[in-house]
């Protein structure tokens, strides 16, 4: 191969920030090919649109999680924050009778505050991210439950549910559109904005980043705030999809999101990876769940298969790297 070729290849894969995710991308394609042959119903526009619907919530959470993991952190609270955001939305819109135009910002604000608190604990009080967000997970869940004493809320305006159901132009629901927009913005940010590059520096080595004049603490607080806000946004889209809110929702979503990010090639130690890979990771999880359902695999066996896929996807990366 000529050197010029090498260069071009490198640049293409880099452009999409698939970084370590070319392996997973191949895995995703193989999975799709397999499912197309194994089932009648997988390969259809309708099923593809269903999958897009199904990954909306996970996708948006995973974007925020990518940023958190890029700076070397982790956020276990996203599932609970999502539930809290939903309950606040329901409370404001249905119980207090505020219009959605106020209820939605309200829910996002509460989510952002939980993230900011976690970020402050991590950056300024040196609480390890795992612990700070674990505590926030417990707190946000408790608060979500306290709003209605554990009951659900229904009675949103009709258009709200329609946003998740009507496929404009036959293809795009508003919720899927929002997810795609979030991915696009996050990708542009990560790739072309100073702020995005800073995340890599902070994750790579916070001390080097600090000495390079980056406000590491401020970046940390902002990233957790953004992650929580996105979890809140995901909650609002989920509320639209379910046309109801309940405080017990979103348990263990953080684990799915983390798995998606890591399958997508972002390293848990921070500093490498990116949004492109996360998209692949989210799709792998979404397609796998969908495919296993279409194959009528028993739910217990599904649990085993998903575990195996996570391990294989991540372990496969080891073989690609040159041995030491």
């Amino acid at each position, binding site marked *: 191969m000529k050197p010029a070729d090498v260069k071009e290849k490198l640049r293409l894969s880099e452009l999409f920030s698939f970084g370590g995710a070319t392996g997973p991308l191949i895995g995703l394609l193989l999975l799709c090919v397999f499912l197309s042959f194994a089932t009648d119903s997988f390969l259809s526009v309708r099923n593809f649109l269903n999958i897009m619907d199904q990954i909306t919530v996970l996708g948006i959470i995973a974007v925020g999680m990518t940023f958190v993991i890029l700076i070397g952190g982790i956020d276990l609270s996203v599932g609970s924050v999502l539930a809290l955001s939903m309950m606040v939305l329901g409370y404001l819109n249905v119980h207090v009778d505020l219009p959605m135009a106020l209820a939605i910002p309200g829910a996002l604000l509460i989510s952002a505050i939980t993230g900011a608190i976690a970020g402050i604990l991590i950056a300024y009080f040196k609480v390890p991210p795992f612990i700070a967000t674990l505590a926030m997970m417990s707190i946000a869940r408790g608060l979500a439950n306290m709003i209605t004493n554990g009951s659900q809320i229904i009675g949103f305006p009709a258009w709200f549910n329609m946003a998740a159901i009507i496929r404009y132009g036959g293809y795009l629901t508003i919720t899927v559109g929002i997810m795609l927009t979030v991915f696009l913005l996050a990708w542009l940010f990560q790739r072309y904005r100073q702020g995005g590059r800073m995340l890599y520096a902070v994750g790579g080595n916070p001390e080097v980043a600090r000495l390079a004049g980056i406000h590491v603490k401020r970046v940390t607080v902002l990233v957790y705030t953004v992650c929580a806000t996105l979890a809140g946004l995901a909650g609002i889209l989920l509320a639209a999809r*379910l046309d109801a809110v*309940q405080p017990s929702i979103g348990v263990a979503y953080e684990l799915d999101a983390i798995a998606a990010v890591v399958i997508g090639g972002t390293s848990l130690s921070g500093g490498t990876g990116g949004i492109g890979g996360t998209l692949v990771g989210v799709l792998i999880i979404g397609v796998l769940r*969908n495919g296993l359902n279409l194959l009528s695999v028993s739910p217990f066996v599904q649990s085993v298969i998903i575990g195996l896929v996570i391990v294989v996807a991540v372990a496969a990366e080891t073989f690609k790297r040159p041995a030491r």
Partner: protein
Amino acid sequence: AQETGIGKIGLAVPNLQADFFNQIKLGVENYAAALGIEVITVDARGDTATQVSQVQDLITQGIDAFIYIPAGAAAATVPTRLARQAGIPVINVDREPEGEPGDTFIAGESVMSAYEVCAHIIALAGGEGKMAIIHGQRGTTPEVLRFEGCKQAIDENPGVELVTQQWSEMWSPDEGFQIAQNMLQAHPDLRLIFGQADGLAMGASQAVEVAGLRDQVIIGGYDGDIAALEYLARCEGAFVVTATQSTQAMGVLAVNSAIAAHHGASIPARQIPNAVLTTCENAQEFVENHP
């Protein structure tokens, strides 16, 4: 499949970890298998959003009828709507979505059965004493209705004093154990415990054993889980009564309703298979042959 004219039934359950849903699943599957109908079961693992996704996938697979047990009432309406759009009949079991009823609703009558369980243990205690309730997951329909029923029994007996109540998250035995242990700690003279599910009641009975209070405390449960029935059939221990839901019967009823709805036959909007009060005497027969 010839005689029934139906090929595939989709079954969405909230959580197979709960024996109750597992029993319904077995009821549906066994009966359908006998009729040569394929059943596709999906388990939402307690998550309503997952359930909506799974229902989409069921519809993609071209099911002819949809047996739907909502995972928490919140997901309720959307799957029904999706199925309706696709022209698939919806049979609700155990929980009914508010505002978007299916073609029929099959569920035991919770309030009355809970009343019977509580009345039974109160009678055993001579109509008086301190009582505790271990609730299920707070806010869920069964939790609310079972409490309502039990409360009636308590209110009819002025000698009974409801001294403490706690809620569990997962309806599970280890929670029941822990909660009951603490209740006995705070109220050593407790006479009665109502566990809103058999898991909770079994856990509570263990706590009573540990405290050495088997002769003092009387426990009631709910659901008629296999393990609980086996326990009751031994006729020893503090846990003495449960309301056995006719889960197998529900499964059969659901499949029959699905076939009828598929053919456009009329079916009643509400079908109520009875829960049977189960004690040491009749437990053994239910172990062998679950209703």
